[in-house]
């Protein structure tokens, strides 16, 4: 698999003296659906800011598609790695939704035709085309989030990082978010989700990297990580509900299975009950 982002022995300390990253080593592959999991203050946001050069490592290096981030500008790196930040209000400033999506494209020097084509395409993809002439501030919070993702997807970065997109969202909005993530993977994007929402990541992702206090304390498939109480405790996190009841009821031990969703657990329990008959 092709390496998208390479992080080697990275250390970063904020000007105030807070050591945010300690010797981080991480490989992110093209096409992955990766989760960076950790509680507040673990260093997740600091890490992803290294992916597009917003922060440069003080020790070690970060390579994005082979390019050392210390040798490239944020604008250059952002073309490859798009970050959708948590609060849409930190980015909206245009009069129209259309301009908002076109902003990045203009900055990157796309032609008028290319801009028209891409903005139209991405607005349609996210069901926002009818709002093209409206003000971004008239949108509902769910629509704003959609717009934020759309405006990054518009310029087609290979990697899209979503920084805590589930905060404050209700169930329906989270389901929609899952759909958008699926949409992104269908577009062959590498998706990196940064979150502390352990329930949200129980399905749809290939790999979980767990961070705590600036280091990576665990890495692996969801079935491994979400059942690993030791790692989760180290990261000040809790087991998601389904793995928790599967573990506490000894079910996962007896059957040596690791259900993550309700349906997986249901299937397991029903097969056990049928086996009894």
């Amino acid at each position, binding site marked *: 698999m092709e390496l998208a982002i390479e992080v080697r022995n990275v250390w970063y300390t904020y*000007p105030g003296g807070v050591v945010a990253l300690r010797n981080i080593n991480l490989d992110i592959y093209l096409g992955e659906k990766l989760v960076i999991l950790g509680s507040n203050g673990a260093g997740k946001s600091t890490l992803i*800011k290294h992916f*597009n050069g*917003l922060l440069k490592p003080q020790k070690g290096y970060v390579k994005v598609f082979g390019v050392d981030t210390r040798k490239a*500008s*944020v*604008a250059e790196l*952002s*073309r490859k790695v*798009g*970050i959708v*930040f948590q*609060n849409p*209000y*930190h*980015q*909206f*400033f245009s009069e129209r939704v259309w301009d908002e999506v076109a*902003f*990045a494209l203009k*900055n*990157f020097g796309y032609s008028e035709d290319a801009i028209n084509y891409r903005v139209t395409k991405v607005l349609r993809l996210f069901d926002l085309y009818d709002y093209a002439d409206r003000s971004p*501030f008239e949108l509902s919070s769910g629509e704003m989030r959609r717009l934020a993702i759309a*405006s*990054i997807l518009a*310029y087609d970065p290979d990697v899209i990082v979503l920084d805590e997109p589930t905060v404050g969202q209700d169930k329906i909005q989270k389901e929609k978010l899952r759909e958008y993530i699926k949409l992104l993977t269908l577009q062959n994007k590498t998706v990196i989700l940064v979150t502390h929402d352990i329930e949200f990541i129980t399905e749809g992702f290939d790999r979980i990297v767990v961070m705590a206090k600036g280091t990576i304390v665990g890495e692996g498939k969801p079935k491994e990580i979400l059942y690993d109480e030791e790692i989760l405790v180290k990261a000040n996190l809790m087991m998601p509900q389904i793995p928790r009841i599967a573990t506490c009821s000894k079910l996962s031990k007896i059957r040596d299975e690791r259900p993550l969703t309700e349906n997986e657990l249901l299937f397991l329990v029903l097969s056990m009950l049928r086996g009894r008959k």
Partner: protein
Amino acid sequence: MKGLMESIYEMFIFRKEDKFLNNVDPRVKFVVLLATAVPIFLSFNPLFYVFLTILLVLQTLFLANARRIAFSLKGIVKLLIMFYVIIYVFNAYPNLLNIEIAAMAFMSIFRFFLLVYSFTLFFTTTCIDDLAQVLYKLKIPYHIAYTLVLSVRFVPTVAKDIVQIYDAQRSRGLELEKGNIFERIRKILPILIPAFIISILRVDFVAEALESRAFGSSYKRTFMVDLRIKLVDIIYAVLILIYILAIYLFLNTKAYSFVLGWF
């Protein structure tokens, strides 16, 4: 620039310290501030500035938190050095080596420094909350006095927002370093507009919180620590005033020329 912001922040933020000046009533400190600042404007005598500096430094070392004050002054000093160079070059050009102008420029900058120093001493040893209380006691309506507190309180919040906005926009290709002067000014918009909008939206939330804590409900607002002028405060102020008066008289009467006659 960042260092300057941090210095200023440290000057206004509240820190609980057991230093003499921190416990002196703000009204007394303000009178002392005036007594120190006004002569700076009126006098052009370098010796006077020396004595004033001694006064400020002594207070800093023995009556307040020297480290914090030094930190607050650090940022300004860098700026002042820059100003000094500008003033000197501007006035000395094309003759770049002029002792007279160097001295004159230094005097101007030093006066300004002394002014900033006295204000810094005042603000680092005075909690803004107390200042608001003092204004209220001087019959200014509390909701006006309180805006002082709110302003200081939200500076770091707004600064944090701006950093996050800047990060988000840079990630969309915004490059502030590039372009001519007009383009660069236009590029500030994607940072200013979100900052304004967030602040405006914030107003409602803060207002709700204020209302829910009964803000503005009582005609007579009380304070957890009721400020009162103590005897020590008065002694302190009187000593300072005597010192300043003494220098002034000393430098302006025959006594000065008499002492100078010894040399």
